[in-house]
């Protein structure tokens, strides 16, 4: 019991240190600027993160810290830290995205608050580490991997990819073709897609619905003829084109239809993670919890597909035990 308690205490201390470091960083450089993390910087970050996790995993027999990072004793304090910061976020009034925090510490812009970001980063690091310890093609590992790899992929792709989301507005007059669009700061972008507006109309049944009859051209020669309505976007080459609004007919140009073009290149990975987690949740629902002795027995028979949650197999368990023992002997 005591050796477990020590492992958990270390996890708690680690998180406290992380919070202190995050606070120092916050006071030194101010809130994290997510928009600075656009491609290719986020690609570099992803590469460093994945390489780091794999290297730490490979060195785990030599470095006790890395071995410990894949244990529950490290994971539970990390989850607790994230939960506490999330509750803190829940009880403070947050400023809109992109605004400066309303107080000197930065907790009203929690998503850019360094301790918050570092806590979730640490948790994802641990999830990545523990995923690798179970990355073997066995049936009993499937639910575990769906849950852990799923949240890892969804969260990493979602956060690193957030700076790459492009939301642009394009105004096209009837009979014209347009390939330029403006972003939220009214900067003009030339796009690899062009929209030709044949006709804009408003249907009156039962509620007014705008619709645009368009042809979309892409740089590599794709031509799509379709109708775009409110809530019925058109997807072309990674762009989603929404009917956004329109401008009243003017004598010299006719109707002008306004489209919103959204590109989120990391979205397929976020969806992959989400669907893995959904499958993992189904496995969690049908899986039967057993106590550890029964589980080990089931594992040896090789037909037990239960325990989708953190169940370290016997090898990892013995690693953990020897790890904790060595901590105990070295410290006492």
């Amino acid at each position, binding site marked *: *019991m005591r050796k*477990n308690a020590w492992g*958990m205490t270390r996890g708690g201390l680690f998180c406290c240190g992380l919070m202190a470091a995050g606070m120092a960083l916050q006071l030194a450089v101010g809130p994290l600027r997510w928009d600075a993390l656009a491609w290719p910087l986020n690609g570099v970050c992803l590469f460093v993160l994945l390489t780091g996790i794999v290297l730490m995993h490979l060195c785990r027999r030599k470095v006790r810290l890395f071995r410990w990072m894949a244990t*529950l*004793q490290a*994971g*539970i304090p990390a*989850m*607790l830290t*994230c*939960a506490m910061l*999330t*509750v803190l*976020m*829940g*009880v*403070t*009034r*947050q400023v809109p995205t992109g605004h400066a925090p309303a107080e000197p510490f930065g907790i009203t812009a*929690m*998503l850019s608050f360094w301790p918050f970001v570092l806590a979730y980063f640490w948790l994802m690091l641990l999830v990545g580490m523990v995923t690798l310890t179970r990355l073997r093609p066995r049936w009993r590992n499937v639910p575990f991997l769906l849950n852990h790899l799923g949240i890892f992929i969804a969260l990493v792709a*979602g956060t690193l990819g957030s700076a790459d989301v492009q*939301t642009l507005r394009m105004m096209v007059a009837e009979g014209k073709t347009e390939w330029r669009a403006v972003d939220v700061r009214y900067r003009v972008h030339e796009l690899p897609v062009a929209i030709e507006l044949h006709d804009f109309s408003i249907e009156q049944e039962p509620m007014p619905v705008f619709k645009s009859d368009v042809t979309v051209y892409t740089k590599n020669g794709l031509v799509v003829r379709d109708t775009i309505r409110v809530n019925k976007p058109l997807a072309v080459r990674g762009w989603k084109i*929404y009917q956004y609004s329109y401008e009243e007919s003017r004598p010299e140009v006719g109707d002008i239809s306004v489209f919103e073009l*959204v590109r989120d290149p990391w979205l397929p990975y*976020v969806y992959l993670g*989400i669907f893995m*987690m*959904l499958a*993992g*949740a*189904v496995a*969690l*629902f049908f*899986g039967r*919890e057993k*106590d*550890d002795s029964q589980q080990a027995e089931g594992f040896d028979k090789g037909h037990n597909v239960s325990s989708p*949650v*953190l*169940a370290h197999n016997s090898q990892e368990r013995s690693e953990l035990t020897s790890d904790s023992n060595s901590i105990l002997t070295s410290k006492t």
Partner: protein
Amino acid sequence: MQMISWNDLWLFALISLLLWVAASWLSLRGGSRKAVCLLAIGGLTVFGSYIGLMWHSLGHPPLRTMGETRLWYSFFLPLVGLITYSRWHYRWVLSFSTMLSTVFICINLLKPEIHDKALMPALQSPWFAPHVIVYMFAYATTGVATLLALWQLCRKQDQLAAIDNLTRVGLSFLTVGMLFGALWAKEAWGNYWTWDPKETWAAATWLCYLIYIHWRRCRPAAVRPALLWLLLCFVCLQMCWWGINYLPSAQGMSAHTYS
């Protein structure tokens, strides 16, 4: 067919409650499981048909006001109670679920002002019903798990296997509900997670239940802290469910306020 309304709730509720009370009483007395299950199913059928008829007369699933959500809660609590009973044969579990269900039915009967409110257009989505039903299941299973945890803390009776199981099932529902919400949000608002107060509390609640499940693996002998933590998880869930409606920091911030 005559349209059904909130005015007919008392009749259906009375019949269902009588059947559920009979089932609870019989199971407390140690009567035959088959008879208990049949009575409980009878109650569920009556209450379920009220929800079905309401669905029919409203023309959409009754999931859009606080009153309508409480209908589902009154329905799912006895259902989860019945599932728990038929799997683990706890004699008292139906009494608990019936009692809770009664509370929600009484709220609906005594506070008619929560019944009918205008609905937001964004809620008119095929994702809406699964999202809320799954969350209702999550609330109900974790609710029963919390009651069992309280029971064990006060009466020192070992209910741990059932608590763990219900929490695991509840967590799987929470996960599915949260992810359905994310997929729906992407469809409707173009963003799968905007950290509005409801989502923030949903994330916190999810993390808290994750901690319980991992803690049970890590320190299986430390039961009391686990059970106390489970009570805290449920407080968090209440915050997520209705608490944020009264939270000053969340006023006017949430896309989820439909009450």
